[in-house]
C-alpha cells in the first residue's frame, strides 16, 4: 500500500470514528433531541397549537390539565388566569426563548469573536486593551445591569435581545482569543503568510475554521444563559411584556395562584428547564466529541 493510500484510509476511518463518537454520546443525543423538539415546536407552532394563545375565555379560567381532576382534552394543559389555552401558550413561548437565545448569541458572538480574533492574532497592545475590556465586562453584574438598562430604556423583546447580546460576549472573546493564539504559530499560518496572503485574510480563511469547535460550545452555553436571563427578567416584570407568552412571564403571572394551582408555575418552569438542559447537554456533548482525543 502506498503512503498516500494509507493516509486517505486513515482519514476515512478517523471520520467514521468521529461519526460513531457523535452517535454514541448519550448526553449529546438527549440534548440534541430536546433541542430539536423545541425547534420543531417553535417552527410549527401554528400547526401544533390547539388554540389561539392570545384568545381569552374568562369563563374558563385556570382550568386544570387533563391528568388532574376536572381536566379535559379541550385544554390538555389547562388554561391560565385569563382563560387562555396553556399548551398553546407554551408552544408559542418556545419561539420567544429560542429567539432570545439565537438573537443574543448572534450579537454577542459577533462582538466577542471579532474582539477575540483581533486580540489573539495581533497580540501585544491590542491584546492588552481587549483583555482589559473583557476584565471590566466580567466585573459588571450581568443580571443587575440588564435589569437596570431594560428597566430604564423600557422593556420589549427587542430591547431584551439587544441588551443581553451587548452583555454576553465575553466568553466568545476569551475562547476565540485562546484558540487563535494556540494556532497562530502553527506552520500553516506561517505558510499562508509566506505565500503572500494579507493578515486579515489569513485570519478569516485560516484561523476561523479552526476555532469553530470551541465557539460552538460557547454558543450553546450562552444561549442557555440568555434564555435563563430573559426568563428571569420577564419574571421580574422587566423583560418581555404581556400578552406575549414568554415562559418566564407565564411563571410570573401564575405566581399568585401558587397555593391553588401550582401547575401554572410548574409547567412553564419545566419547559424552561428541559430546554436549557437540552442545550447544555448538547454543548457538553459537542465539547466531548470535538475535544482532541475525545473522552
Amino acid at each position, binding site marked *: 500500500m502506498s503512503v498516500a493510500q494509507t493516509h486517505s484510509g486513515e482519514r476515512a476511518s478517523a471520520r467514521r470514528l468521529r461519526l460513531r463518537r457523535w452517535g454514541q454520546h448519550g448526553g449529546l443525543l438527549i440534548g440534541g433531541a430536546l433541542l430539536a423538539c423545541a425547534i420543531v415546536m417553535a417552527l410549527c407552532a401554528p400547526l401544533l397549537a390547539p388554540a389561539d394563545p392570545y384568545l381569552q375565555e374568562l369563563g374558563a379560567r385556570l382550568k386544570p390539565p387533563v391528568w388532574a381532576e376536572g381536566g379535559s382534552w379541550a385544554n390538555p394543559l389547562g388554561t391560565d388566569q385569563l382563560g387562555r389555552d396553556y399548551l398553546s401558550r407554551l408552544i408559542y413561548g418556545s419561539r420567544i426563548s429560542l429567539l432570545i437565545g439565537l438573537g443574543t448569541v448572534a450579537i454577542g458572538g459577533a462582538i466577542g469573536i471579532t474582539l477575540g480574533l483581533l486580540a489573539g492574532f495581533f497580540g501585544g497592545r491590542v491584546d492588552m486593551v481587549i483583555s482589559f475590556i473583557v476584565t471590566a465586562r466580567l466585573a459588571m453584574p450581568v*443580571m*443587575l445591569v440588564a*435589569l*437596570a438598562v431594560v428597566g*430604564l430604556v423600557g422593556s420589549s423583546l427587542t430591547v431584551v435581545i439587544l441588551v443581553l447580546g451587548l452583555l454576553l460576549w465575553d466568553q466568545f472573546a476569551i475562547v476565540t482569543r485562546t484558540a487563535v493564539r494556540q494556532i497562530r504559530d502553527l506552520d500553516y499560518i506561517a505558510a499562508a503568510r509566506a505565500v503572500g496572503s494579507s493578515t486579515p485574510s489569513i485570519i478569516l480563511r485560516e484561523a476561523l475554521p479552526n476555532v469553530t469547535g470551541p465557539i460552538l460550545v460557547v454558543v450553546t452555553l450562552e444561549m442557555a444563559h440568555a434564555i435563563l436571563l430573559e*426568563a428571569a427578567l420577564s419574571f*421580574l416584570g422587566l423583560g418581555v411584556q404581556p400578552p406575549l407568552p414568554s415562559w418566564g412571564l407565564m411563571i410570573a403571572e401564575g405566581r399568585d395562584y401558587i397555593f391553588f394551582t401550582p401547575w401554572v408555575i410548574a409547567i412553564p418552569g419545566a419547559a424552561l428547564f428541559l430546554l*436549557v438542559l437540552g442545550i447544555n447537554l448538547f454543548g457538553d456533548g459537542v465539547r466531548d466529541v470535538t475535544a482532541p482525543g475525545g473522552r
Partner: protein
Amino acid sequence: MARYAMQRFILALAVAVAVSIISFAILRVSTDLAQALAGEAANQEEVEQIRIAYGLDRPLYVQYFAWLGDIARGDFGESYYFREPVAGLILDRLPLTFTLAGMSLLLALIIALPLGVLAALHHNSWIDRLCLGIAVVGQAMPSFWFALMLIFVFAVTLQVVPLSGGDTWQGLILPAVVLAYYATPAIMRLTRAGMIEVLASDYIRTARAKGLSSASILVKHALRNAVMPVVALAAVKFGFLLGGSTIVETVFALDGIGYLSWESIQRADFPVVQSIVLLFSLIFVFLTFASDILNAWVDPRVRV
C-alpha cells in the same frame, strides 16, 4: 510577591474606574432621567426645570466627574424616591444581603467540595455520574422557578419554614438554598476537574511510592493543590451570588440590596440603581484582586 500584588492592585483600580465609567454611561444614556422624574403628565417646561435642578443639563463627563467626586467624599447622592442619602439606604440593607450570600456560599462549599472530591476519587463511577447529573440539572434550573417550587413544597405544603421575610434566620434557609444551588455546580465541577488532574500527577505517584498513608496523600498532597483554584472561584462566586440576590430577594420578599435595586429600577430611582451597580462591581473587582493575592500567597512559585 510585593511587585505582583502591586501589579494586580493597579489592574484592579483601572478596572474599577473603567467599570464606573461604563456603568455610569450606559445607565445615563438608557433613559431621559428628567422626563422619568417629571412623570408622563409633565409638560416640556417642567421637564426642563427638573433637568436643571438635578444638574442633568450638563455634559455627561461633567456629571460623571461630579458624581465621582461626591463618591470620593462618601456621598452617594440622594434617592429620588426616599429623599434620603443612598449610602444609608444601602448600608441598612447590606447586612441582610451579605448574610444571605455568605450563607449560600458556605452551603455551596459544604456540598460541592466533598462531592467534587468524591467524584474525582471514584472517577467514572456512579457517584461521579450522580455529581455530574446534579451539576447539569443545577445549571439548567431557573433560580426563580426553583425558589417558587421550594416555597410551594416547604412553606406552603409542609409548612416547615416561614413563607417569607428575613426577620428570623429560618426565613433565610430557603433563599440560601436557592442561591447555593445556583453556585454549587461550578464549584463542584472545578473541584472534580482539579482533583482528577492532581490525582493523576507525578507527585501523587511519588507520594504513594514513599509509602504515605492514603489520608496523608489525599489531604496533604492532593487537596491543597486541587483546592487552590477553587478558592479563587469561591471568591468570585460570592460576587455572582450578590448579583443573584436580586431575584431571590424579590421572590422571597427579603428587604436586602437586591430587592432595593429591583424596586429602584422600577421607580427610575437613578442614584440608587447607579450606586448599587457600582457597589456590586467594586465588590467583584475587590474579590478578584483578593483571590489573586490569596492564590499567589498559597503558591510558592509566585510567592517567592
